[in-house]
């Protein structure tokens, strides 16, 4: 998976309620300070080691992804991914659950769209049934619904499957095929909604080359 760009939304991410409950400590302060450092090397060393700081760093890092300095924002996002991936390691359920608990509030309406989109993908890697409801609520958001669909597709278990099935019932026509795609991927048959993957849709304006083209090129060259 890549670490893709958040963009730089105008609104900074507010600290979430969950942050207050997490162990905010000097390690977080130190991490954030280094992520904001002017040195490329310091920032990189910081984001590479962010996994050790864990859940307490999630909200402050998310806020930094909106930083005006593009490389600071990028380092913050990469640090967030490090936290997620380290928490997803085997036999680290408590850490994983703590990180998930910090991520879910970042899906809220007040958060910048790029943050919410990225968090959906983070949850897709480590979340379980506890995250299905907040993710499924994104299916009615036109800007986030495709990412939410893909996140649910990836999260194993009955809860995510049920959410996709329920969403299909309620979805507008222009999103039903997307949901059907996920349900098929999860092994269900979806009658009445044919797969569109082989249906061409995009026309070019380029025309075939003809001998006349060569003649006109020659003429143009004199």
């Amino acid at each position, binding site marked *: *998976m*890549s*670490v*893709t*760009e958040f*963009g*730089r939304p105008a609104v900074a991410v507010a600290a979430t309620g969950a942050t207050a409950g997490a162990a905010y400590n000097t390690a977080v302060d130190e991490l954030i300070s280094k992520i904001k450092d002017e040195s*490329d*090397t310091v*920032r*990189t060393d910081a984001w*590479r080691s962010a*996994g050790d700081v864990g859940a307490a760093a999630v909200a402050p890092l998310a806020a930094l992804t909106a930083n005006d300095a*593009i*490389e600071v924002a*990028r380092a913050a996002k*990469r640090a967030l991914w*490090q936290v997620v*991936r*380290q928490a*997803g*390691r*085997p036999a680290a359920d408590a850490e994983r659950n703590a990180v998930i608990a910090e991520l879910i509030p970042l899906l809220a309406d007040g958060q910048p769209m790029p943050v919410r*989109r990225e968090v959906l*993908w983070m949850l*897709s*890697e*480590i979340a379980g049934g506890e995250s299905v409801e907040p993710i499924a609520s994104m299916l009615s958001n036109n800007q986030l619904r*495709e*990412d939410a*669909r*893909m*996140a649910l*597709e*990836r999260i*194993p278990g009955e809860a995510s499957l049920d959410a996709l099935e329920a969403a299909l019932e309620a979805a507008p026509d222009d999103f039903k*095929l*997307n949901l059907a*795609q*996920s349900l098929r*991927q999860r092994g269900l048959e979806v009658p009445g909604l044919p*797969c*569109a*993957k*082989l*249906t*061409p*849709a*995009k*026309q*070019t*304006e*380029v*025309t*075939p*080359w*003809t*001998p006349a*083209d060569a003649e006109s090129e020659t003429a143009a060259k004199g």
Partner: protein
Amino acid sequence: MKQPIQLSRRAFLATTGGAMSVPYLIPRGVLAAQDRPGANERLTMAVIGVGGMGGHHLRDLKRFQRSGEVHIAAVCDADETRLAKAVETAGAGVQPYRDYRYILERDDIDAVVIATPDHWHAVQTVHACQCGKHVYVEKPACCTIEEGQAMIAAAESNKMSVQVGSQGRSQHEAYLAHRYLANGAIGNVHTVTCFHYPSPMDDNPVPDGEPPAELDWDLWLGPLRWRPYNARYCHGVFRWLMESGGGQIRDRGAHVMSCAMHWMNADGTAPVTVETTGTSPTKGLWDSCINMNVTYTFKNPDWTLTWNQPGEPVPKEERTEGEAKISRPGYGAVYHGDNGTFVHWGGDGGTWAERKCREWTPPPGAIEVYESPGHKEDWFNGIKTGAKTIMNIEAAVGVADLCNLGNLSYILGRKLNWDGAQRQVIGDEAANRMLGRPQRHPYHL
């Protein structure tokens, strides 16, 4: 009421007039296998993705067109500027398309060459096979383990010939190296160490912006999740994004490790552990490793393969007049056997074997290995006879899996214990989720 029988063009030609029109002295067996083009039949082709390597393939196919083996019918690209240039290169009678699925709808096209960015390889290969087209697809075969399995299934169930563009296997000196190692010239090989110079860093980062008018950004992204356009995604430089290109390990690694798997007779096998360390870029959009060390351990037989950036590059061998010059000495591999070592440089369209291998004379009774007539020629043969290509999809997916698991170990920061038979990371649920990735509608497997 009797229904009219629908025959495909191939079936019709193979069973009736088409076959009868061929001189009857052609030996039995060279006529078309069921629904395959006959040995002397011209193949009608399209090129999907015509920049970079796609442009090379288009020019290469024109060579085969001149000799009458191929007819180029269509070209396709998501970038109108590139497409317009390709139309000019291809010449009269070649239809341009933005959307490759128009090509797959055409009954007259036998085969497609796919040279799009890596994140498109699997989806387009699967779709092409499902539409009855033979495929030459650029390496690496796929970006995820799941994609690779879908490619194998699509090729097999539709009986399509797939060649993957790790063309090092088809080079003459690769044949010499294979023969040399297969005959135990350096004894039992226990370790193969690859070397490659570091991957680049994005030294000119720019903010996200609007895509250029000529580029269909939605189509370029295809199965990838949507994100704003950034000029540092494309063209060509997609290679340095983990999601789309995967860095040098998926570029040159898919060549150098392809040679290793072939020469070690290890196609169809998989490592039991994969462990990666790497250095990250300190700025910019690109997120692939700059330096990287991956260790793959294989069991039964036991051997170790390592991918090393930069590793320990071997100075290139001096070559005399008349010998093929080593033009890309910055990557290759050293094979360590019980009785010595063997070095090769390159591993792609340029593959150079150490002198002692080139001068080695097989003793009576030596093992002979297959020598490819050329990577495309080998594919054409596969299309017409059903023979497995030298870089068939199973072998290519095996190599791509090495690359993808190496990157996955780096991303996760932990060693992977791999069950090659089940294609699962043992005891690591989060890693297993990342063996595939959801795809954007409608660009999916």
